[in-house]
C-alpha cells in the first residue's frame, strides 16, 4: 500500500484517491501523522469509555504532565536531528535546576527563571564542546556529564530538600485566561519557536544537513562544530526549563524531581517520528509525541494500572517505533 502511494506521488495516474490522503501517507511523514491520528482516536475512546475522562481535572492532569516533558522532548529533538542520537543528561540537569530554582526564588520568579536558563545553557554548552569540538561519543559523554552534575548538585545541596522563599504560583498553578495552564502556554511557545528555527533559519537547515550526512556537511563548508554546540546548548536549556516547571509545583527543589525525564523525552522524540539516524523530522513531531505518550500514560493511570506498567509500555512503544521507523525508512530506499 505504501509502495502504491509512492508511485502515486511520483507519477500521477488517474487515481481518484484524494491528494490529502497521499500527503498523509508520504513515507517520511507517515509515522508523524499516524501518531497524531492515534492520539485523537485515543482521546475519543477515553471520552467514550472512561468516566470523567474529559473533566477539567483530568484534562488539566494530562496538560500538566505533557508540559515539562514536551519542553525536554523539543530540546532532545535538536540533538536527535543533528545525528547525535540522545542527550542522557536531561534528568540530572532538571534535578539540579530545581535546586537552583528553589534557592533563588526569593529574588522573584523572572530572575529565578533567568538563572535556571543560564545554568542549563552552561551545562548544554559544556556538552556541546565535548561532543561537537572534541568529537566524543555523545551518549557516553552525556552520561558522564549527568554524573558530574548530579554529584555536584548533591554535594551542594547536601541532599536536602530546599524550600523556595517566594511565589512560584504563576508557573506552578497559574492559568492563562483562566483556562490554559501557563506551563502549557510556555510549552506551546517553545515548540512553535523551535519549529520556526529549524524550518526557516540557516541554523536549522544546517542542523538538518549535518544530521543527514555529517562528512558531506563538513566538506561543503558548513560550520559543523558551531552548529552542534548550539544544538546542545539549546537542549541543556530545555532540560533546565523543564526542571523549573517541576520545581514550581510546590516551590521546592530536590534531586529526586525530574528523574525519568531522559526516558520520557527519548520516547516522545522517537514515537513522534523524528528519525534516529538524524536529518528527518520536525520539532512539532516531538511535541506531539510527548502529547501521545501523556495521553497513553493518563489512560493507563486512570484505568488503575501502576506506573511500572507505564514504564514497560513506554519501552515497548520505543522499540515498536524504532522498528516501524526503520521499516518505513527501508521501504523508502
Amino acid at each position, binding site marked *: 500500500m505504501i509502495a502504491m502511494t509512492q508511485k502515486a506521488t511520483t507519477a500521477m495516474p488517474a487515481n481518484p484517491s484524494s491528494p490529502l490522503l497521499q500527503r498523509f501517507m508520504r513515507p517520511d511523514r507517515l509515522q508523524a501523522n499516524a501518531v497524531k491520528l492515534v492520539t485523537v482516536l485515543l482521546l475519543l475512546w477515553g471520552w467514550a469509555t472512561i468516566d470523567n475522562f474529559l473533566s477539567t481535572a483530568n484534562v488539566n492532569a494530562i496538560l500538566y504532565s505533557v508540559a515539562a516533558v514536551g519542553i525536554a522532548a523539543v530540546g532532545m529533538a535538536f540533538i536527535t536531528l543533528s545525528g547525535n*542520537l*540522545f542527550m542522557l543528561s536531561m534528568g540530572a540537569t532538571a534535578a539540579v535546576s530545581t535546586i537552583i530554582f528553589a534557592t533563588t526564588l526569593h529574588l522573584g520568579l523572572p530572575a529565578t527563571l533567568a538563572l535556571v536558563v543560564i545554568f542549563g545553557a552552561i551545562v548544554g554548552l559544556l556538552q556541546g564542546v*565535548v561532543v561537537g*569540538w*572534541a*568529537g*566524543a*561519543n555523545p*551518549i*557516553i*559523554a552525556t*552520561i*558522564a*556529564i*549527568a*554524573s*558530574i*552534575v*548530579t*554529584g*555536584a548538585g*548533591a*554535594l551542594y545541596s547536601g*541532599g536536602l530538600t530546599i524550600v523556595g522563599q517566594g511565589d512560584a504560583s504563576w508557573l506552578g498553578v497559574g492559568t492563562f485566561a483562566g483556562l490554559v495552564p501557563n506551563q502549557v502556554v510556555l510549552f506551546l511557545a517553545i515548540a512553535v519557536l523551535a519549529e520556526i528555527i529549524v524550518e526557516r533559519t540557516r541554523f536549522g537547515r544546517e542542523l538538518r544537513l549535518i544530521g543527514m550526512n555529517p562528512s558531506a556537511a563538513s566538506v561543503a563548508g558548513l560550520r559543523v562544530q558551531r552548529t552542534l554546540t548550539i544544538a546542545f546548548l539549546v537542549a541543556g536549556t530545555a532540560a533546565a526549563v523543564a526542571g523549573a516547571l517541576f520545581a514550581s509545583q510546590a516551590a521546592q527543589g530536590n534531586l529526586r524531581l525530574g528523574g525519568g525525564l531522559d*526516558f520520557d523525552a*527519548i*520516547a516522545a522524540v*522517537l514515537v513522534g517520528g523524528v528519525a*534516529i*539516524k538524524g536529518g528527518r523530522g520536525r520539532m512539532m513531531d516531538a511535541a506531539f509525541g510527548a502529547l501521545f505518550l501523556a495521553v497513553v500514560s493518563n489512560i493507563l493511570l486512570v484505568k488503575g494500572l*501502576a506506573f*511500572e*506498567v*507505564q*514504564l*514497560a*509500555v*513506554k*519501552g*515497548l512503544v*520505543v*522499540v515498536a517505533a*524504532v*522498528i516501524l521507523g*526503520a*521499516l518505513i525508512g*527501508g521501504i523508502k530506499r
Partner: protein
Amino acid sequence: MTSRKNGLMRRLGGASLLVRAGLLVVILGVFSVLSPNFINGYNVYALMQTFALLGMVTLGLSLTMIAGEFDLSVGSMVAVAGLITLKLGGSSMIVGTLCAVGFGVIVGLVNAAISSWLRVSSLVVTVGTMMTLSGLAYWIGGGQVVSTDNIDAGMFLDDPILGIFSARSLLAFAAFAAVFCLMRFTRGGRDIVATGSRRQVAAAAGARLGISLAIVFVISAGLSALAGSLIAISLTTASPELGANLMLQAASAAIIGGVALSGGVGGPIGVMIGVFILATLNNGLSAMGANASAVLFANGLVLLAVVILDGRLARALLERLREHRARQHLAAAAPAH
C-alpha cells in the same frame, strides 16, 4: 599506522597492557599509604566481590564494544535477572539462574536481530530494550522487592575460598578465561574484531557479521543475567533498583581497559585490568570515607576524561603527531638530495 610487532605482543596489545597494570599497582600503592587498612584479607576479598559483579557485566559490554556496537541494557538486565531468579527459583536456585540466563540469551538475540536486520544503531535498540526491561523489572515483582529465605545458597556463593576469593569471583575469572579463548583461538573471535574495525571490508573478506553480532549480544545479555542472578542469590533479595550505576561503571572500566568506542580494539585482559582499576578507585575512596556523591562525581569525571581522549579530536591530533614523526624518520633515513 599501528606497528605490527611479533604475534604474541600484538595480541596482548603490547606495552599498553603493561602501562595499565602499572597504573593499577600505583593506585593500590597510593591508597595503601592514604588508608592504613587498605591491604588486608577482608578488603582484597571485598575487591574481588566487586569484581564478581562489575567484571562479568563489563566483560559482556566490552565484547559488544569491540564489535563496534554498545549494549545499554546491561544494567537493567542485571535487575530483571535477579527478579526472575528469585521468583522462579523457589527451592532450587540453580533452576532460577538457568531461567534468568535463558531469558538473557533471548534478549541478546532480540538486540542482535533488530540491530542487524533493521540496520539500526544498537545504541538505540538497547535504549528501547533497557526501558522495557526496567518496566519489566517492576512488573515481575508486582512492584515489590522480592526476597527469599534461602541464606545458605548465598553463603555458598560468597564463602571465602583461599581467603580472598569466592565462588562468585572465581566464576567471573572463568568467564574471562572463556572469552579470552574465544577471542584468541576461534574464528568467531576474529570475526568479532573484524566486525568492529572496518565492517564493509570485513564483510567483503568473509567475516560473518550477523553471527558476530548475535554472539556478542547474547554473551553480553547472558553474562549480565548471570551476574544479576548471582548477586540476587547472594543478597537474598532482588529489586528493580539494583544495578542502577552499573552501566556507567562498566563503560568506564571497559574504556579504561583499552576498549575503544569505535570498535575493533581491546581484549579481555585489558578489560580485567580496567575493572580492577575502577573497583580499586571506588574501594579506596570508600575506605577513606568518601561521600556517595563524591564517588559519583569522581566516576563521572573519569568517564568524561576517558571518553574525550577516545574521541575524534584526540585521535586526529595523535594521527598528526605520528605522521610528523614518520616524516622525520623518513627525512633522517633518506639520503640527502
